[in-house]
């Protein structure tokens, strides 16, 4: 009983002190360390994302601290578990900004969680950078259409992949006309398809056919026969691997041997199993990151990550690593640990190069950055090229 009351007293005192500290200008009380929060999916359905993120952020901070820290201070990571839930993400954000007094927050990865928690960090005027939240409303307020002052992200938004693929198809593959087959039940696929069409036409291409399907469909032969009759040089299918695998398989069976391409919904170990390795040859998809990227910073990152955790970094790890570096860069540029100044510095970041490419924020706090095109070769993914915006 005594112990409990002691703990309670400490908690109450801590909260009060934290409130006081927040009241008079953020985390500047502590001289030697800078606290950065991470609001991550440590448990729950998306725990694998959060764990990758935590690993990568810890690695980034360790490397920075070994080099002497930022402005002479060491970075300290405070992780709060959001249990992969939007409501818990809000609680975690509240804890980070009001109790732990962090100067900036990294995460969550799930768009719905970032959107829910953004009210908290915006009213506390603490910047939040989401490594992998792709929904447009992560950084823009849905009701007013205004950019949220303190929300940033490290990944590009989904539709950008359509733009990238249009560029790749015309410039690298040299195709003049394309057909589009859209997953009509997903906003993600529709967004990609729309940007692909607009940009493909802008680059001088023609769209011969535009057809759609629904998730869980299994027979695409009728639609593919129709598409085949329009003789496209290229087929764009921005869906998820479960249907796309079948589409690729059935298209090849119908003798459609043109390049087929899509977005990161294709990225699954199941793809070669469903479509068959031979059918997947001559297919491409766009993605945020490839561990094969040959830039020096990425090579070092992959080597360090493998050494520390015994596995290759996934896309969540890569973008979280970049998020951590971006936060460090912003603190350095701000020359201060005042959260509002850090956010100002973040908005001004220009041409920062991370493991997933260079980052400059646009006025909606979305990074303008390069994408990678991966190719399936005999059932394995390989890096084809990098496309700059």
């Amino acid at each position, binding site marked *: 009983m005594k112990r409990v009351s002691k703990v309670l007293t400490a908690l109450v005192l801590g909260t009060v002190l934290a409130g006081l500290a927040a009241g008079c200008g953020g985390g500047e009380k502590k001289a030697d360390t800078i606290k950065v929060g991470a609001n991550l999916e440590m448990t729950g359905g998306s725990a694998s994302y959060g764990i990758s993120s935590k690993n990568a952020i810890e690695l980034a901070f360790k490397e920075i601290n070994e080099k002497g820290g930022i402005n002479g201070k060491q970075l300290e990571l405070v992780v709060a578990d959001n249990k992969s839930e939007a409501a818990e993400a809000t609680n975690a954000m509240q804890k980070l900004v009001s109790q732990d007094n962090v100067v900036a927050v990294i995460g969550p990865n799930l768009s719905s969680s970032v959107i829910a928690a953004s009210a908290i960090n915006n009213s506390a005027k603490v910047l939040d950078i989401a490594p992998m939240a792709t929904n447009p409303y992560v950084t823009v307020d849905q009701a007013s259409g205004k950019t949220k002052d303190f929300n940033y992200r490290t990944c590009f938004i989904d539709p950008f992949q359509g733009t990238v693929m249009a560029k790749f198809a015309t410039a690298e593959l040299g195709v003049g006309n394309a057909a589009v087959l859209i997953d*009509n039940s997903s906003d993600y696929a529709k967004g990609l398809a729309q940007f692909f069409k607009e940009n493909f036409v802008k680059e001088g291409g023609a769209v011969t056919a535009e*057809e*759609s*399907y*629904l998730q*869980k*469909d*299994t*027979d695409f*032969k*009728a*639609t593919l*026969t*129709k598409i085949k*009759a329009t003789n496209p040089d290229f087929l764009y299918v921005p869906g998820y691997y*479960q249907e796309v*695998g*079948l589409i690729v*398989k059935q298209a090849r*069976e*119908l*003798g459609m041997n043109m390049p087929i391409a899509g977005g990161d919904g294709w990225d699954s170990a*199941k793809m070669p*199993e*469903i479509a*068959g390795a031979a059918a997947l040859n001559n297919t491409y998809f766009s993605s945020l990151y490839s561990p094969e990227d040959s830039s020096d910073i990425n090579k070092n990152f992959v080597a360090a990550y493998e050494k520390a955790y015994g596995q290759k970094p996934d896309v969540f790890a890569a973008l979280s690593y970049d998020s951590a570096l971006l936060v460090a860069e912003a603190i350095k540029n701000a020359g201060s640990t005042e959260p509002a100044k850090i956010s100002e510095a973040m908005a001004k970041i220009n041409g920062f190069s991370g493991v997933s490419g260079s980052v400059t924020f646009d006025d909606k706090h979305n990074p303008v950055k390069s994408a990678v095109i991966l190719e399936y070769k005999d059932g394995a993914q390989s890096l084809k090229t990098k496309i700059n915006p």
Partner: protein
Amino acid sequence: MDMGSLLHQFLQQLINGISLGSIYALIALGYTMIYGILKLINFAHGDIYMLGAYFGFVATTMFGFSFLPAILFAMACAAVAGIIIERIAYRPMRNAPRIAILITAIGVSFLLEYGMMLIATPQPRTFPAVFSADVYHLGPLVVNSQQVVILVSAIILMAVLTYIVQYTKIGKAMRAVSFDADAARLMGINIDRVISATFALGSALAAAGGVLVGIYYNSIDPLMGMVPGIKAFVAAVLGGIGIIPGAMVGGIILGVVEAMVSGFISSTFRDAAAFGILIIILLYKPAGIFGKNVREKV
């Protein structure tokens, strides 16, 4: 588009449609049989088809069975599952109003879907290729050996089913129960056993469909029975629910209509066409193509 390529497209769509339709037909056969005998629309039928696909998956991946033993194994397991479902979920409702049994069937359907999700995870699984898919080119047309196998299997199973229902003792008993259950019982027919046999047979057919589809599309998941189940229901109604050759014809017609609509109008209208047919049939010929308009005895 010139006439030649239009004709070629039409023929290719016909092939696509028949191969899709034979899958609907396989599921519709079991649907129609259970309805014909019990007057029960077994909404869980599509999920028995899913169950059959998983049994086939287990047989081929874990036990290393080849095609024929795997499909027989799946049919046997699904038959047992069908009997159990009937025993547990439908038999206690035998004398309940029809709507109550219908709701029970929907409940069983969800139980199977999400129960399987719990056991096998929602991740789709890839079915091993137990026989190779040879592609035949007939001029500009493309046919796949698997499509032929599915069509032939559907026809064989339909023939076997017709034989059982028309010429065997249990088939006669089924028809007697269908005609008048009380009178059949008075004649000494064990109604419970007949109904169990009906479920076993219907479920075995669905399982055969599930395994064939698993091989054809090479991907199975716990919700794979949802849409085909509903489409097969449309096919059964189209052919005349309760009539075995009707299910076969209804399935093929539905498949061809879907292929033609996606091929010549738009893929978005495909499902609208399928369910449009259901509405038209129910409005103008509720007994279906093969159905005789018999007044139901009251």
